[in-house]
């Protein structure tokens, strides 16, 4: 783990009861934990996985707002469950750069709740990682958006499973789900973007793509003098940056960039 992360973890550790107030917090996950964001509170939370299997249960109470940045850089299996009450909002970014299994279950329990997820996995060598994002629209008038971008190179195996569930009566649900992937070398990509809908007044869409780097773009960049390696790296960065840098927790951007750069050099 980088020094910077250690520092953050030490200075902004979670309170023992898991009830967090306004401001930024950091949690290294080494076991199950419960976290609560009280009514009307706006907080930021950095979750860094330890080398373990764990569950993190998060409650965002009415009108609360939580921004989560989840960094997965160990061999871990972490489940993050976020329940959002009426008018609550959760914006979550996730970066996966190690062999791991992560699952996010977001439940929109109260009206007008909102969940916005941007994730990226970058896999190289013989990494195998799975990313699952289940969004449950339990209440009406909620909005969710899931974007997961995957890059797999070498002999790696990346898998995305997404489910948008819309309960009966969860009318006026607005949900988007997008899985975009780039494969390089002998990598294997599997994507399951699923919808399960039991209400009619809904706007739900999903999309999935599997493709390669854009040869025309690489040619274009090389014509302007960039080396092949730089052109490729730039394109992958461009591909995942919008989700990786989807939200910023002060002082973490450089940690993310570092993790990414390290991984991209192995592509």
């Amino acid at each position, binding site marked *: 783990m980088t020094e910077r992360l250690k520092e953050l973890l030490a200075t902004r550790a979670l309170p023992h009861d898991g009830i967090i107030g306004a401001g930024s917090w950091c949690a290294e996950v080494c076991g199950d934990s419960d976290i609560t964001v009280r009514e009307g509170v706006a907080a930021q939370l950095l979750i860094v996985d330890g080398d373990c299997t764990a569950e993190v249960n998060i409650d965002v109470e009415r009108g609360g707002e939580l921004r989560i940045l989840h960094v997965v850089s160990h061999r871990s299996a972490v489940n993050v469950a976020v329940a959002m009450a009426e008018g609550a909002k959760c914006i979550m970014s996730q970066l996966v750069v190690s062999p791991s299994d992560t699952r996010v279950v977001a439940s929109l329990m109260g009206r007008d709740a909102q969940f916005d997820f941007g994730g990226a996995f970058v896999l190289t060598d013989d990494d195998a990682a799975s990313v699952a994002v289940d969004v449950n629209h339990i209440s009406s008038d909620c909005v969710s958006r899931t974007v997961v971008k995957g890059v797999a190179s070498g002999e790696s195996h990346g898998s995305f499973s997404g489910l948008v569930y819309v309960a009966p009566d969860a009318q006026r649900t607005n949900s988007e789900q997008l899985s975009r992937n780039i494969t390089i070398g002998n990598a294997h990509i599997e994507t399951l973007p699923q919808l399960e809908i039991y209400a009619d007044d809904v706007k739900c869409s999903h999309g999935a793509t599997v493709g390669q780097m854009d040869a025309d773009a690489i040619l274009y960049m*090389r*014509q*302007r*003098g960039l*080396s092949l390696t730089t052109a490729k790296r730039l394109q992958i960065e*461009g591909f995942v940056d919008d989700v990786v840098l989807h939200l910023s927790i002060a002082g973490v951007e450089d940690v993310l960039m570092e993790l990414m750069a390290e991984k991209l050099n192995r592509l």
Partner: protein
Amino acid sequence: MLKVENLHATVGDKEILKGINLEVKAGEVHAIMGPNGSGKSTLASVLAGNEKFTVTEGKVEFEGENLLELPIEERSRKGLFLGFQYPVEIPGVTMANFMKIAVNEQRKSRGLEPLTAAEYLKMMREKSAIVELDAKLTSRAVNEGFSGGEKKKNEIFQMAMLDPKLAILDETDSGLDIDALRIVATGVTRLKREDNATVVITHYQRLLDYIVPDYVHVLYKGRIIYTGDKTLALKLEKEGYDWLINDYKEE
């Protein structure tokens, strides 16, 4: 500066260039015209080093070096610029970042220090003014969501940034309205010097009103079948290519 001798190139099994001869000297402007499918864009691509095409015969010398041996990016760093007919969109890669890398790669290959952030910003401001490119565009992803005119202006902006010895502009005028055409063309003219050269590939005389060529070549079926001065373009605009093609067939 550029010397092309008997250049043949194929894509797949199909021969597209069938023996091109062309010499471009410093300070000159050449226009290449010709009907659709005659090989104009292929010539530009082959000179830039697009690996889709295979050179089967011939020589290309650029500044005394064998151009065909160099990879695309080396050609670029040595001062060959291709203005794309269809500039490529690169999502997520900002113009500013992209050009910074490109400029510094070129400087590195010439043994120069990379520009400082301040120098680079100053350079961007100056060069974007040449083509009246909205400064906001440089913070957006390369060509993404740019209008047709903005994309072409962006090509000339990049040309200004990289300051090439030889610029090959592939149908830079296509799809431009009259104002954008004027801006793009005057941009090119302003970059013109005694020590650089320009090859413009075009269908229309109107671009040549601004960028006055020293030579006009007509490319047909993979060969340059006729070379004249700037009056040739006017004649072609009025009379089309048929008279030339007919002459050529009789030969």
